[in-house]
C-alpha cells in the first residue's frame, strides 16, 4: 500500500478529554483504503474516545489527525476542513444511539444524506438512489417502513450501517457493533464490514472485545494497553503478544 491509499493519518496523537491525562503516549497510525483494523483493549482504555477523535468529534490533545490528507479537528482552525466535508468522509457508528420510537428505517437511513443536503434538507434523485442502494446492500429494504424501535438488534445494526453507507464515507468507524448481537449475526456483520472495505475501498476501524472476530476478519489489530497503542497484522498479533492484556496468554 502506498501513501495515496492512506485515508486516515495520525501523527504524534495524544487523545483524551480536556482537563484529564491523555489515554496513551503520542503515537502514529495510518488507515488504508480496503483495510479493516480491529481496535481492542479493556473497558475504559479509551477505544471510544479514540474513535471520536478519529471522527473529528473530539479535538486531539496533541498531534494531528488527517483525513484524506486534510486536518480534521473539533476545534476551529484556519486549515481544518468544514464539518460538512468531514461528515462526507468519515462516519462513527455507535449502536447505543437510541432513535426516536417513531422514526422509520427509511427515515433513519435517509439521514445519511444530510451532509449533502441543502438548507431545507431536501433529497435529490441521486440522494434517493444512494439511500435505496444502501438499504439494498445491507438487506434492510424489506422493512424500510417499520419503526427502528421494533427491529431486532441484528436488523438494527444493519440499519445503522446502511445509514453510514448511504453517506458514501471513505472511513467507517464502529464502536463495538456486535455488543448486542448473537454469534451468527456477529459473523454476518463482520463479513459485511469486510466486503464494504473491499468493494468500496473503505478504511474501517472497528472496536471489539472478541479476539476471534478480530483475528478472523481484520487485516490489522490495534491494542490500547497500559498507556500505549500497539499495532500488528492480525495474523501476527498473537505471536507478537498483543493479547497479553486479556490475561489468557
Amino acid at each position, binding site marked *: 500500500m502506498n501513501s495515496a491509499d492512506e485515508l486516515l493519518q495520525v501523527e504524534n496523537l495524544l487523545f483524551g478529554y480536556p482537563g484529564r491525562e491523555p489515554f496513551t503516549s503520542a503515537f502514529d497510525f495510518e488507515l488504508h483504503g480496503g483495510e479493516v483494523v480491529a481496535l481492542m483493549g479493556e473497558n475504559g482504555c479509551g477505544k471510544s474516545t479514540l474513535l*471520536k477523535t478519529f*471522527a473529528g*468529534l473530539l479535538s486531539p490533545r496533541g498531534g494531528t489527525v488527517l483525513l484524506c490528507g486534510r486536518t480534521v479537528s473539533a476545534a476551529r482552525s484556519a486549515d481544518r476542513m*468544514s*464539518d*460538512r*466535508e*468531514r*461528515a*462526507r468522509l468519515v*462516519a*462513527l457508528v*455507535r449502536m447505543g*444511539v*437510541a*432513535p*426516536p*420510537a*417513531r*422514526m*422509520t428505517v427509511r*427515515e433513519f437511513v435517509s*439521514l445519511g444524506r*444530510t*451532509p449533502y*443536503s441543502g*438548507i*431545507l*434538507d*431536501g433529497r435529490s434523485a441521486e440522494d434517493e438512489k444512494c439511500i435505496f442502494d444502501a438499504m439494498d446492500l445491507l438487506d434492510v429494504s424489506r422493512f424500510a417502513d417499520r*419503526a427502528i424501535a*421494533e427491529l431486532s438488534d441484528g436488523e438494527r445494526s444493519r440499519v445503522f450501517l446502511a445509514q453510514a453507507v448511504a453517506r458514501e464515507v471513505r472511513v467507517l468507524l464502529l464502536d463495538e457493533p456486535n455488543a448486542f448481537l448473537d454469534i451468527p449475526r456477529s459473523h454476518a456483520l463482520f463479513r459485511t464490514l469486510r466486503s464494504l472495505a473491499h468493494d468500496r475501498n473503505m478504511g474501517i476501524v472497528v472496536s471489539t472485545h472478541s479476539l476471534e472476530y478480530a483475528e478472523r476478519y481484520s487485516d490489522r489489530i490495534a491494542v490500547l494497553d497500559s498507556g500505549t497503542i500497539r499495532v500488528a497484522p492480525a495474523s501476527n498479533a498473537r505471536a507478537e503478544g498483543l493479547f497479553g492484556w486479556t490475561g489468557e496468554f
Partner: protein
Amino acid sequence: MKRIALCFGTLFLGVLFFSVWTLVSGPVDVPFSKLLDSLMSPDSSMVSRILWELRIPRVAAAVLAGMSLAVSGLCLQTVFRNPLCGPFVLGISSGASFGVALALLAGISIGHFGTLGAASVGALVVTLVIIAFASRFSQSSVLLVAGLLLGYFIDALVSLLIAGAEGESLQVYVAWGFGSFGRLTLDGIWVFALAVAVGLLPVVLSMRYLNSAHLGDEFVRGLGIQVGRSRLCVLVGSSILAGAATAFCGPVAFIGIAVPHLSYLMFRTTNHRVLLPGSALCGSLLALVAGVFPQWIPLNAVLSVVGVPVILYVLVRGARQGRSL
C-alpha cells in the same frame, strides 16, 4: 406520499372551511354573497365593518396563533427530545404574563403600547435570558430545567402582584389570562404576521438540525451540523413564535403541546419538512375550531374541555395501534 398529500389537502380545506365559517357566523350573520362583495370591495356598511374590523382579525389571530404555537411546540419537543414540552415550558408565556401583570396590576406601563407591548417585552426578556442560557450551556436537559425554573420564578412574581392587586385591575388581568383571538386589530395583523415570519425563518433554516436532533448532539455533529448554532436558531425562533402568540392572544394553552402529536399521528413521519407545515396547518385548524364557540366562553376552557378528550382518544387509539409517542 399520497397519504401526506391527502392530509395536507384535508387540513387546508378544514382551515378554509372554518375561516369562512368564522367570517359568516356570529351575533350578526353575514350572507355568503355579501361576504365576497365585502371582501373584494370594502365599504362603510355595517356588514363590511364587522367583517374587516372584527372577524378578519379574528380569523387571522386564530390562524397565526395556532400556527405559531404548534410550530413552537414541535420545535421545543424536538430540541429537548421530550414529548411533554410546549411553548409554556421555557417560561416565555410566563414572561408575557409578567409583563401584562406589571402593566395591569402594578401600573407600570411600557410606553403607549398597553397590554400588547407589556406582553411583548415580558416574552422578549425571557427569550433573551433563554438565549443567554442556550449559548452558555450545551446540554438540552440543563436548558430545559433552567427554563422550567425560570417559569416558576416568574409565576411566583406574578402571584405576588396578584396578591396585592385591586379588584378591577385583577379582573382585567384574569380576562387576559383566559386567552382570546378577539383582541387583534386590523392594523395589528401585519405586525403579528411579521413576528410569525421572523420566528419561522430561523426554524425553517435549521431543518437539517430538526430532522436529526432526536438522535442526540453527538450524532448530529457527526452529520456535519453545528449543534450549538442550530439549537440557538430554533430556540430563538420558537421563543419569538410563542412570545408573539401570547402577546397578541394571551396565554393560549394546549395547542403547543398537543398539535405536534396530532400532526405525527396524521402524517406518520419524523421528517420536519412535512411535520412543520403539517403542525402549522393543524394548529391553525384547531384554533379556528376553538374560535367558533361563543366568545363568552374562555378560549382556554374551550381548547381544554373540548380538545383534551379528543386528543386523549386519538393518542390512546394511536398507542393501541403501535403508534405511541
